[in-house]
């Protein structure tokens, strides 16, 4: 039997965090539920579809009530806007492709939970992420992938403050999504059959460009038409605004070019979107900045596995060079759509060593 702890559990109102809270209660911990209010709901029109909306707060409260645990709402809107939404917008404006959930986990959600947990005398922090905590050779805590590889969310967690690891609990890490839904039904939780929330919580329409247009203005250079340029430098048409495109994308380039073209990059300073053939979206080297490591950083020559998108497979790579600020990797095999701004997460087996933001792909 595990020791009894006082656990602060983040509850979005979705099925995952609801079951996470329920499991902690079952295990006999003293559980405190919190929902983080991340943005101003009144600015969002219509019913909120995503997990963190106002409905989410009511769902979380109802689940907490059913579990017999206290529930509070923490307002993190100011920090969330600064660290996540502003970053999201400025990254797109700079021609990159951000990971807002990574930013939120690393800069806002977990840091805030840690701080408030300390104030409330909690000795553990839990969320409904599909990830696991394991123990390394030196007895140190290790962040690992969840058992359910379909749902695994370790990719989103590389930015957590390392000092948080000893306090982390991921009650769902050893379960599959169907098992979690089954648990939710067995517990009679009203969130059991709630649909998956795939969207970004502050993009209620499901189209991130709406947020960019709202925050930057529809006539911002990143959203205004510009030249569509081939990889050999010829202007072959016009695009609708470089922030509307992501590396690897085919849609929205228009036809009539005589071949299938893919976005391979953007140059914000000239508003150019660069397109090329399918093989040109593959890259074998990348430079990663804004690093975060849970243990010792990998050194030159180290063999690791590198995951560059949520849905991508972690691919073998080795460290070419690195210092404290940035690190350069070379893949064994070229990888598709290495997008600056996205997270590059460093694994060894199913353990997360850390990661960073892709700065360059050349």
């Amino acid at each position, binding site marked *: 039997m595990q020791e009894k702890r006082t656990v602060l559990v983040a509850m979005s109102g979705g099925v995952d965090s609801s079951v996470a809270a329920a499991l902690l209660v079952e295990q006999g911990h003293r559980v*405190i539920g919190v929902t983080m209010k991340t943005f*101003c709901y009144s600015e969002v029109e219509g019913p909120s579809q995503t997990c963190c909306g106002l409905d989410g707060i009511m769902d979380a409260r109802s689940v907490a009530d059913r579990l017999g645990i*206290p529930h*509070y709402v*923490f*307002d993190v*809107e*100011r920090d969330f*806007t600064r660290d996540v939404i502003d970053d999201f917008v400025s990254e797109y404006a700079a021609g990159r492709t951000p990971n807002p959930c990574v930013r939120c986990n690393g800069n806002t959600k977990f840091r805030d939970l840690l*701080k*408030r947990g*300390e*104030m*409330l*005398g909690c000795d553990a922090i839990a969320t409904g992420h599909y990830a696991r905590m394991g123990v390394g050779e030196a007895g140190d805590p290790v962040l690992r992938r969840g058992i359910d590889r379909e749902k695994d969310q370790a990719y989103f967690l590389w930015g957590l403050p390392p000092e948080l690891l000893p306090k982390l609990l991921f009650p769902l890490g050893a379960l599959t999504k169907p098992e979690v839904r089954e648990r939710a039904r067995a517990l009679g939780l009203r969130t059991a059959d709630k649909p998956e929330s795939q969207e970004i919580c502050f993009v209620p329409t499901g189209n991130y460009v709406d947020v960019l247009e709202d925050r930057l203005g529809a006539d911002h250079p990143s959203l205004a038409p510009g030249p569509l340029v081939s990889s050999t430098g010829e202007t072959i048409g016009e695009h609708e605004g470089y922030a509307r495109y992501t590396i690897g994308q085919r849609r929205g380039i228009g036809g009539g070019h005589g071949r299938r073209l893919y976005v391979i990059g953007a140059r914000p300073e000239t508003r150019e979107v660069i397109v090329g053939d399918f093989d040109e979206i593959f890259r074998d080297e990348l430079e990663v900045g804004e690093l975060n490591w849970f243990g010792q950083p990998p050194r030159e020559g180290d063999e690791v596995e590198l995951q560059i998108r949520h849905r991508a497979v972690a691919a073998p790579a080795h460290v070419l060079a690195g210092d404290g600020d940035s690190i350069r990797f070379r893949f064994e095999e070229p990888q598709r759509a290495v997008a600056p701004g996205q997270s590059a997460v460093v694994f060894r087996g199913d353990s997360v060593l850390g990661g960073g933001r892709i700065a360059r792909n050349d």
Partner: protein
Amino acid sequence: MEPVYLDYAATTPVRAEVREAMLPFLGETFGNASSVHRWGRDAKLKLEEARGKIASLLGARPMEIVFTRGGTEADNLAVLGRSREMRGGGVVCSAIEHRAVLMAAKAAEAEGAPLHLLPVDADGVVDQEALTDVLSPSLAVVSVMWANNEVGTIQPIGSLAQRCVEAGVVFHSDAVQAFGKLDVRMDETPVDLLSMSAHKIGGPKGTGALFVRKGTRLAPLIHGGGHERGLRAGTEDVAGAVGFSVAAELAMRERKAQCSRLTVLRDRLQAALVERVPDLVVNAAGAERLPTILNVSVPGANSEMLLVMLDLEGIAVSSGSACSSGGVNPSHVLTTMGLSADIAGPSVRFSLGRETTEGQIDAVIAAFPPLMERLRSTSGV
């Protein structure tokens, strides 16, 4: 520890006697008090008995009592009703009024009425000279609360009302916190309008009353069938009115004994916290206060987490701070009293009531100081 409820200024449990008195009106005595038939007459009789009881407790006439859906509605009727009656006549109120008065005054202002806020001193006492300076016959109403809901400061109502009488200006007082605890008498104080609420004194929520001194003209806010002398349309809530009258009777009967008992407990809590929590500030310490309220600030404690932590530890209290977009706004009462945000923010209001025991106060005295120490040590940026 056993959970301790120290939030009686927010609301109180309905007293058993009150519940008992209300039950017939949720059962067989269901008539509409405006109906001609015997069901209606029965209801009307009880409604008027309730009105009469409250009037006599206040030293008022039954016809001067208008039942409302609570204290907020009574405040709105007084402030906005006066301003509209005077077709945009000016409104003066203290800067530390409850939002029910402040927002009604702002609504009057939006309709074109000049609004003036009276300053208070560091203990929350209204500046009487500032009132004298702005008194003029063009004013629709002056509104100053009898006792403040956050810090407990009791205002010099008699003297303020007298100044208004002399200037020929209608005076309203929000007595939601004072009624049932202090000597609130309309035959001794020249107040023209007085707001009361049932649920602060062991009565049901959703019932209140406005005392309207004979001859004081008001524009109704709710229009309809001419109930409550045309000042508050809508079928009367007989159960609520009866419950209110019983609660008021009991409160007045027990008032002196409870006040002296709770003053002792409150002072003991205050002295112990001052002694055991370094740098603790007692707000409005120099004022004459309600015996039931103790408001303290714990500089250096995270204001947003203060109430959460106390709730988790079983201490139910309030703070005047309001959560708003992106953080916590310190109470307007404390900031108006001149407190800086770092003192006004981390404030706690303990409010005691009839069910509060010595053992509960001792439990809070034991639990509170170490909690504040932990919160302070973890609140650092």
